[in-house]
């Protein structure tokens, strides 16, 4: 058992590509759920659209990555409009069911055999998706991350990813302090009060859905670029639920909530996973198999999500007064 290695692995995961992707998805969800109170259970759909747009434009169509990124963001706006127009007038529970259904619908479409020529069926899209981005890598060829275990390629994605997160978070900070932010928080607390002030609640909700969706799609874009592969069955509703866990862990309706949540979530998840794997290999735990580590990590997420919601719905940073979670 090498505790130093376990720690290094955990920190690598906590700052790594996956954490960045989930952090972006959670920032988007924070705009929708945290500030506006939209119970979007289909955040993974925006990640899917971001990732697949890049894959389709770059690999299937053979166009430039720099063209693919604006197309991906535009596609997420279109998805938000399609999703929002029928559902944003509905009560929270209806919205939840419809958004989760829409995200599954999207996954079933992109993995279908009928559209295999475009989306690649169950194998997804693989190839040099992020080549143009990785070509810009300024890190020296013999670059080795001190202490952590990033490859040169991942280190470049991670650097850019956290800069993007910083910029987006700053934008969100400006936005929620603006009059717009006050209106959407008003919608979350009491929709009728906002309506009585003459605000068009539907438009504000739609704007929140679009903004949150675009940030989520940004996560998908980084996914496609970093992993150079887009596979349909990774975009399951569990991604949305992980994102909720991250947001609730860090604290909804807080700028640093998604960031702290993502780092802590992946640190804990990777730490537990790595620790168990090592302990099993070292023979300390003989009632588990190495393949059991995956399910155990999921079980911990499930228990974590339940306990957070029951005992500390405001998360680490959250303010209970800020967030009176209640439907109807």
């Amino acid at each position, binding site marked *: 058992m090498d505790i130093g290695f376990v720690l290094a692995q955990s920190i690598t995961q906590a700052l790594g590509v996956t954490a960045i992707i989930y952090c972006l998805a959670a920032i988007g969800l924070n705009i929708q759920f945290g500030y506006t109170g939209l*119970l979007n259970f289909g955040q993974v759909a925006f990640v899917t659209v971001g990732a697949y747009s890049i894959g389709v434009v770059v690999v299937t169509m053979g166009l430039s990555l720099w063209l693919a990124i604006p197309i991906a963001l535009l596609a997420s706006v279109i998805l938000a409009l399609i999703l929002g127009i*029928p*559902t944003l*007038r*509905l*009560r*929270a*529970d*209806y919205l*939840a*069911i*419809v958004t*989760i*259904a*829409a995200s*599954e*619908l999207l996954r*079933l*479409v992109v*993995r*279908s*055999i*009928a559209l295999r020529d475009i989306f690649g*069926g*169950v194998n997804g899209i693989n190839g040099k998706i992020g080549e143009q981005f990785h070509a810009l890598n300024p890190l020296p060829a013999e670059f080795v991350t001190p202490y952590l275990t990033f490859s040169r390629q991942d280190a470049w994605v991670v650097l850019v990813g956290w800069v993007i997160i910083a910029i987006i978070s700053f934008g969100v900070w400006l936005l929620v302090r603006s009059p717009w932010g006050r209106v959407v928080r008003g919608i979350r607390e009491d929709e009728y009060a906002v309506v009585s002030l003459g605000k068009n609640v539907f438009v504000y909700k739609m704007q929140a859905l679009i903004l949150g969706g675009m940030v989520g799609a940004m996560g998908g874009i980084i996914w496609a670029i970093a992993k150079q592969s887009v596979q349909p069955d990774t975009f399951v509703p*569990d991604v949305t*639920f992980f994102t*909720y*866990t991250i947001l*609730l862990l860090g604290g909804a309706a807080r700028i640093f909530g998604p960031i702290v949540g993502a780092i802590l979530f992946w640190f804990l998840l990777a730490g537990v996973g790595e620790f168990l794997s090592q302990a099993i290999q070292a023979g300390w735990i003989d009632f588990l198999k190495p*393949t*059991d580590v995956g*399910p*155990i990590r*999921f*079980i911990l*997420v*499930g*228990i*974590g*999500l*339940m*306990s957070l*919601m*029951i005992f500390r*719905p405001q998360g680490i940073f959250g303010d209970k007064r800020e967030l*009176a*979670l*209640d*439907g*109807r």
Partner: protein
Amino acid sequence: MLQRRRTIVGAFLLLFIGLFGLAGTAPAMAEGSAIVGVITDPSGNPVPDVLIGVAAEGFTETGTTGPDGAFRIEIPKGGSYEVSIDVTTLPEGISLAKAEDESRTLLVLGGEKKIIIKLVDGEGTESAGPIDPETGEASVSATGGTGQQVIQLFFDGILFGILIALGALGLNLIFGTTGLTNFSHGELLTLGAFTAIVLNELGVHIIIAAPIAVIFSALIYGGGQNKLLWKPLRRRRTGLIASMIVTIGLAITLRYTLLLFFGGSPRSYQQYAGMTGISIGPFSTTPKALILAAIAVVVLAVTVFWLQNSRIGKATRAVSDNPALASTTGINVERVISVVWILGAGLAAFAGIYLGLTQDVTWNMGQRLLLVMFAAITLGGLGTIWGAIVGSLVVGVFIQMTTLFIPTEMKTVGALFLMIVILMVRPQGLLGRRERVG
């Protein structure tokens, strides 16, 4: 009086539908058809990265086994397929037990077709090189005339609808009485099916194991869950959105706990696993599908009759209408909620066993049906008894019938799409009363 007459008519309608439904075949899974299997080496360890090819006329697909040795290759429709294994991707020193297993032709009727691949230690038999999927020569078997196909799909749909209704009724009752959108309802199906399989593997015949599992599920997973989790949360005045997220956490926990203890490969009950199909008139089916559907219809009819006529059933509807008002008239709301959880979990467990007998028992079987159940109750009307049943039948028939126009693997897409459209034009559902939903 009018109420009672409607009830009796309804119960008859249900029986009638059921009798017709008997002529159908086993309901197909919500997801598309697929060829599945697990490859393990002679000592039982999973073998990853084995390349498997499936070919039929105008269709080829390849897949590889995952770290758990399992593979799943989706196919567009039932028919005859040639399945070939690329023996060059097997680990060194391991070969197929029977050389002719390298390529086999099999008939898939729909749902998941499990194939068994046996491996042995020792010299590899001669290998034919990597698969060239383009040369798959199997031909798709001819299906019946279109008219017959329509009728067959309609009855398949009714049967599938009956299965959905078992799950959806409980889901809708819980929603009606507590307002909780229960995303862990699918796991109630799975838990029921697994409880039965544990008993079954201990040597209890499934006919005895099934009712025991249903009662156990109803009391422990339903009643117990309500008492230990939801009652304290109601007392803490946890909001509905927070509760909804709790159900998601619960669903993840339960699902992966089952995966941890039982593994990912599909299981079957020891009795009635492989059953030869029979033909009744123009329909093909299996005897177990007929019997299960008949039992399900009787169970549903009795449940609906009881809900509409017994004191506690009427109290259930009163609580659904207005819990505060119901409690002022002396109805014990907590007791009603408890009954609803017990009933809902019992019905769900039966649905799980039903699904397990006609298909396989897997750790995520309930989850795969959850969205279809939600589609059914949104369509029929959230919180209503008849809404759940009518919605389920409509969704079941819709899912099966759309396979005439779209590939089988996309049939759930149709149902989810239908749900979204219904919400746009009639948010309260087909049978729901108009109320504020926005």
